């Protein structure tokens, strides 16, 4: 049985519903530029009608649910794109540092030092008797060994610094998984009392996205809205808590392991995966190639040099030009350094004979590397080119993923981001409805007055 008070009740619900709408609109406007925020909407529904003779009578409006507008599918896509981007961009930034250290093509790189070294020997072949040309050989030889040493040294240092980088990233992962676990608990308990905590879900999604840049994650959600985050099959965050990770260095390799369990957590991509790939594979490979160049140079030059004869010595000196075996240990033999006459330019001891110097100068184009198919210089040039190509491919991947990500973010923003125009229109809509409902209250008031005035 509907009375005048029912009209008042309907108006009251209308006022509350529109106010809730304005409240949500205001919240949306306030968060228009908050990262990760999804616009929220009040779902207004007509409340249960009352059956009366001849039909139903409406009982007004009810705010059924305040929820966020979000596409779960795009979130997944963004996360998987994010870990590929993290992987490529981490590799790109580290490789760019390698490129800067190698510093080619330039006049100050190892390539130039190699050239100058062989040219010095050629110059010695033209002037085997002169101490100036002998000194030049020592000078260029020393410069070359320094170049080898410093390049190897800076690559080693870069690699060592990567451990700190990986540690920092793992710290970030640990922090994120802890926060995710906390958020998850809050979301589940909010859901238990029947509310939909949109803002908490937004910040959980934001954390997940940050995490997916660092490491490739798999996220599964149960029917209660609780999520479980796993990396390479290991659960690292759930309602039950977060699993802290740490770096483990074994020999020359690094791995991520559970802090407590100690068992390895496979992370093949993301920023962590990218940095680890460079540490475990790429840099060791680059440095091995550098060592290979140094070792080949040392052994070939020494073989020729020790068979040659110094200035004024009819017997072979037997002296090696270089000592050491690697890019790090290569040095000019101190016995040669202390006396330029010990540089072997001559094959038979005659001061004008230059056969040994010429043979050493010719090492530059001798096919000694890669199964005697290419020269030392060609091998080095190929090495430089490989580094450039790796950077290009990392850059290409990261640019492509960035583009994909931009497009998906654009799509998500189309759905989820706040449009001020839209909110203004909604605000006006709610305001008008509120005005009208207030008018109903005033009218009901008049009605009551009319009834009270009846005598």
């Amino acid at each position, binding site marked *: 049985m509907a009375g005048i008070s029912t009209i008042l009740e309907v108006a009251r619900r209308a006022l509350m519903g529109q106010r809730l709408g304005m409240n949500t609109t205001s919240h949306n406007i306030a968060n228009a530029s908050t990262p990760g925020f999804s616009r929220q909407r009040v779902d207004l529904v007509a409340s249960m009608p009352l059956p009366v003779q001849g039909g139903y009578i409406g009982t007004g409006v009810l705010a059924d649910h305040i929820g966020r507008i979000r596409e779960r599918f795009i979130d997944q896509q963004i996360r998987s794109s994010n870990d590929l981007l993290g992987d490529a961009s981490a590799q790109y930034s580290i490789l760019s540092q390698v490129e800067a250290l190698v510093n080619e093509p330039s006049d100050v790189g190892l390539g130039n030092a190699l050239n100058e070294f062989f040219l010095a020997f050629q110059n010695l072949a033209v002037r085997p008797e002169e101490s100036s040309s002998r000194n030049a050989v020592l000078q260029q030889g020393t410069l070359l060994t320094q170049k080898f040493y410093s390049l190897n040294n800076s690559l080693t240092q870069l690699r060592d610094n990567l451990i700190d980088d990986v540690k920092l990233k793992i710290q970030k992962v640990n922090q994120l998984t802890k926060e995710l676990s906390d958020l998850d608990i809050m979301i589940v308990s909010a859901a238990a009392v029947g509310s939909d905590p949109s803002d908490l879900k937004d910040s959980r999604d934001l954390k997940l996205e940050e995490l997916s840049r660092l490491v490739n994650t798999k996220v599964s959600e149960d029917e209660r809205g609780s999520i479980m985050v796993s990396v390479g099959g290991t659960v690292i965050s759930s309602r039950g808590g977060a699993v802290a990770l740490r770096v483990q260095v074994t020999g020359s390799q690094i791995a991520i392991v559970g802090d407590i369990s100690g068992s390895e957590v496979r992370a093949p991509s993301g920023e962590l995966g990218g940095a680890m790939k460079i540490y475990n594979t790429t840099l060791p490979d680059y440095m091995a190639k550098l060592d290979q160049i140094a070792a080949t140079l040392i052994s070939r030059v020494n073989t020729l040099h020790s068979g040659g004869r110094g200035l004024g010595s009819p017997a072979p000196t037997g002296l090696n030009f270089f000592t050491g075996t690697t890019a790090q240990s290569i040095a000019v033999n101190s016995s040669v350094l202390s006396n330029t006459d010990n540089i072997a330019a001559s094959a038979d001891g005659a001061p004008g004979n230059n056969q040994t110097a010429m043979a050493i100068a010719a090492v530059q184009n001798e096919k000694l590397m890669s199964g005697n198919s290419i020269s030392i*210089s060609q091998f080095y040039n190929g090495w430089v080119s490989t580094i*450039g190509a790796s950077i290009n491919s990392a850059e290409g991947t990261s640019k492509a993923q960035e583009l994909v990500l931009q497009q998906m973010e654009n799509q998500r923003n*189309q759905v989820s981001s706040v449009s001020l125009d839209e909110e203004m229109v909604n605000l006006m809509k709610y305001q008008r409805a509120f005005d009208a409902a207030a008018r109903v209250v005033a009218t009901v008031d008049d009605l009551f007055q009319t009834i009270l005035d009846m005598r």
Partner: protein
Amino acid sequence: MRVTETNIADSFLNSVNKNRERIVQLQTQLATGKRVNKSSDDPQAAESILRLKSMLSLNEQYQKNVGDAQSVMEMTEGALDSFANVLLEMRELVTRASNGTHAGELGIYADRIDSLLDEAVNIANTKFGGKYIFGGTQTLDAPFIMASDRSAVTPSPKGITGSIQFPVSEGLSQVVNIDGQEAFQGTAIFQAMIQLRDDLRSGQFPTVAQKDSISSMYDYVLGKGSKAGSILQSLDALNTHLTVQKTQLEGLLSIQQDADVAESIMKLKHDEIMLDAALNTASRILPKTLLDYLR
């Protein structure tokens, strides 16, 4: 399609960023004049640049080597010419000595030949850049030693033979000396001069055979001089070849390495216009909302 302020702002920022990235790259190209500044700019080109640079520095070294060889060979040619002139003068002396000369005057001719012998030994011991050019590979010892009693000229005990080769081109070396053994038949020419001097001194007139042998010695040394000349010619040809090669290498290097300034500027101009357009559009669209039209 629902387009929000975030969409507009994001797409604006993305395109402006990309544009600025291209502008920075072009600026670097224009500032350095080089298209390839890092190996990642163009890995293949970087490899070629390194190879070409190394070939260029080798080419420069070869040119230096050829230059050195030319100086040595010019010196050698000059010395052999002077030596031939000594022999020519000796032949004239011998001719004059055999025609209408008193036996008593032969001593004067002997003295003259003795001084020519000095001259010949000095020429054979020519030094260039601190090195004896007729010593073979024994460049630090005088190849010919005059005995203190002037009775003989002996070769250096260390030897006067050995050919010296300079690297002059990829895989190619050039002999750049004529050793004492070859140039003067060892000490044979000096011994013949000593024999002649001693004969004249003892009052013997020079024989026809002696005269003929001087002539053939003259021809021999002259022949060695022209050998030096022909080495010089091939060095000249090498030099020309190396210069041409250098120009070619520089051209190739430039193709790989240098920025096409005109093209870069055109691209830069284009990107500038695009940036301008993006900024201009954004400045018009970004500040607009419905609020502007609500009272």
